[in-house]
């Protein structure tokens, strides 16, 4: 019984210790962000690596989700003779929820895991130590550009997911199922609000971008510098980042769209 309490206590202490380290790490990264103005090329390279290289998976997933959404919504709406509202239903589902959330989950799996593995391997192969010994701060040179690149890329990828998803819904609804073209777009224009819907979706995706990239770079930097340690850190990134995104989504949705 006593051992059990000891185990719980020790585990809790380790969790808080790690959370403390993660926050101190975040402060160091934030303090290093201004140095990026002098190394703008690093940021551009990381936006390519983190953002541009994630585009394919985002576009394919967005198209697929949009098409499924169009098909399912049409089948329900047509029973009520409301298929002309397919446009706003698809668009609102995507810009408010599915765009930011699914893009974030894909981003965590594709870019987040890559960031952790890259930084973890740099640590395991002493590249970070080597950099420190050359009087170059790895937080400034390696971590900060990746952190900012993730935050910039995430809302763009979410917007791309939503745009392609709407196209997918249009293709199925209008192209295949015969919903009126004008009604699809006109209803969407009437019902989707730039600030309440689109902007809130963008805010969500920025917050998801901060959370995922923070988890990814911290897990890599804090990884045990062995093959097993890097592998575990990569798994942690995908699991923690995905769960954090889902939890944050509920909180943000309640704050933005709830009547609480």
């Amino acid at each position: 019984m006593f051992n059990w309490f000891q185990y719980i206590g020790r585990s809790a202490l380790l969790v808080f210790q790690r959370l403390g380290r993660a926050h101190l790490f975040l402060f160091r990264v934030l303090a290093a962000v201004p140095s990026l103005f002098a190394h703008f090329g690093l940021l551009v390279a990381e936006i390519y690596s983190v953002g541009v290289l994630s585009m394919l998976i985002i576009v394919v997933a967005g198209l697929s989700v949009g098409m499924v959404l169009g098909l399912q919504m049409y089948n329900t709406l047509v029973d009520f003779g409301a298929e002309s509202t397919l446009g706003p239903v698809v668009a609102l589902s995507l810009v408010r929820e599915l765009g930011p959330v699914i893009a974030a989950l894909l981003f965590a799996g594709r870019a987040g895991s890559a960031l952790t593995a890259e930084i973890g391997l740099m640590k395991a192969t002493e590249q970070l130590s080597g950099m420190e010994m050359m009087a170059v701060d790895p937080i400034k040179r390696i971590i900060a550009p990746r952190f900012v690149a993730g935050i910039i890329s995430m809302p763009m990828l979410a917007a791309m997911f939503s745009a392609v998803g709407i196209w997918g819904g249009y293709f199925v609804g209008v192209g295949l199922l015969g919903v009126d073209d004008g009604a699809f777009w006109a209803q969407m224009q009437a019902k989707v609000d730039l600030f309440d819907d689109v902007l809130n979706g963008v805010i969500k995706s920025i917050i998801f971008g901060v959370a995922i990239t923070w988890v990814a770079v911290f897990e890599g930097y804090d990884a045990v510098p062995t093959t097993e340690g890097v592998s575990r850190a990569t798994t942690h990134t995908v699991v923690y980042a995905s769960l954090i995104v889902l939890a944050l989504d509920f909180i943000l949705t309640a704050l933005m769209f709830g009547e609480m």
Partner: protein
Amino acid sequence: MTTMNDNLVEVRGLKFHFAQRAIFNDIDMNFQRGKVTTIMGPSGTGKTTLLRLIGGQLKPDQGSVVVDGLSVPELARKELYGLRKRMGMMFQSGALFTGISVFDNVAFPLREHTNLSEAMIRDLVLMKLQAVGLRGARDLMPAELSGGMARRVALARAVAMDPMMIMYDEPFTGQDPITVGVIMKLIRTINDSLGLTSIIVSHDVQEVSAISDYLYMISNGKVVGEGAPGELGDSSSRWVQQFMKGEPDGPVPFHYPAEEIERDFF
């Protein structure tokens, strides 16, 4: 006997523990300017840790580490980075940046810390690569290098900023005899021609005896022997003799501690 001013690095009363295990228990060491000094000892005795303490990547629990008159553990980050610009380090793995070419690896510290033109950097990098015999490998990526070549590139990068000292972490481990010979020659030549102070950690007795001016032997957190290579070979210490001759049994036992053999078999 050396005077204070002759020592570029001085370690005094150093105590350091990691994960509740004492790595160093009150050790004193001097690293004389212009000399090649080697720290020897079995694997796991903390040789690499000592380099990290000298480089300020770790802080001692007690004692002092002074490099060129500066107390390393007490330096603020900016001062520490200023000191590190005058230090070079060659890691066991080479620690080359895998995403950039050999040329860019060697150019990295120059681009970070100087405002030299690209033309000037090119000339400097090619001179350093020429010194380690790899001028022709400038466009290769680190993944295309053999282990020995990677260490030579790491050496070129370590001396890119013309440091006052250079630290080598296990430079010979896992290398073929020709590469070992090349690295031995480079360490000695670079030390003498650039007027550096070199610190090597290694357990390769023959190799370091051939190129070192002074040797330290550490075991169980203590300095168990020191002297010029010839003096150490004649040491009366059984531990030093076992290590120098590579004897399988002695003060460092062949058997891991275990209960009486009779209890396992009879």
